[in-house]
């Protein structure tokens, strides 16, 4: 039942302004900014301090993320 419920958990979307406000209101290190694009895309441009974990390898790299911290994904 739990997994079924979670499958349908809607994900909250925030726009740029909301994200900026969120980040400005928290000290560095209190949240994770996650970049799930490919390394070449990250290299061209990324949000400062973003952590790069490309989507294809995300499931295998979960140990790199802190579940207790809020995560903003792009």
């Amino acid at each position, binding site marked *: 039942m739990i*997994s079924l419920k*979670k*499958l349908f*958990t809607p*994900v*909250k*979307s*925030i*726009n*740029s*302004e909301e*994200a*900026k406000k*969120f980040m*400005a209101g928290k*000290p*560095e*290190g209190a949240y994770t900014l*996650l*970049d*799930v*694009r490919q*390394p070449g*895309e*990250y*290299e*061209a*441009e*990324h*949000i*400062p*301090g973003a*952590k*790069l974990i490309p*989507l294809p390898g*995300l*499931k295998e790299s*979960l140990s790199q*993320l802190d*579940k*207790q*911290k*809020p*995560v*903003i*994904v*792009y």
Partner: protein
Amino acid sequence: MGGRSLAAAQLLSGLDFNEIYNLQGGIKGWQGSKAAGPQELNLELVRGDETPAEMIALAYGMEMGLGVFYRQMIERTEDQDLQALFEKLADIENHHKKRLFDLLAEIDPLGKDVETYESDIRPTILEGGFELDDFMKKNEPFLHTVPDVLDLAMMLETQALDLYLRFAEKSTNAQTMDVLFTVADEEKAHLQSLGSLLEEKI
């Protein structure tokens, strides 16, 4: 855009992550400063096991390098507005240095005075990790107006912010990470004030 981030956000929210947000529009939707370069850029400057004092010395050298750069630029321009701006930018670097020195004093209250401390540090690397001389050669031709200089300063601050946070990511010392987060918060506030200044000037 943003399809992959939605997929990632859904994956994470199904895995006991407490608070997940998907950025609308992905990077294209982001209306803010952006850094460039691969994830490893300049990470060879750190080993990962630096003590807070070692990391402060490295950051101090970086801030000092940029301060030297701005001071040199004051000499190289005749424009008084630009001179005033470079002066202001150099002062901000001094402020960052003071903050770093204060952080050091908290860790090591019986340390050296600031002059002695600074005399042992070499300002070779620019904020963001650029080589100073090389950078001056390439960028000087583009620094003729106040918005140009503010744009450059914001680029440098953004690269520095990103680098400090990547240092934190590589660090294995919790106290060193805290130092880097503190410095990053300062850079962020500084970046915001430069942004407001740029809005006034264009």
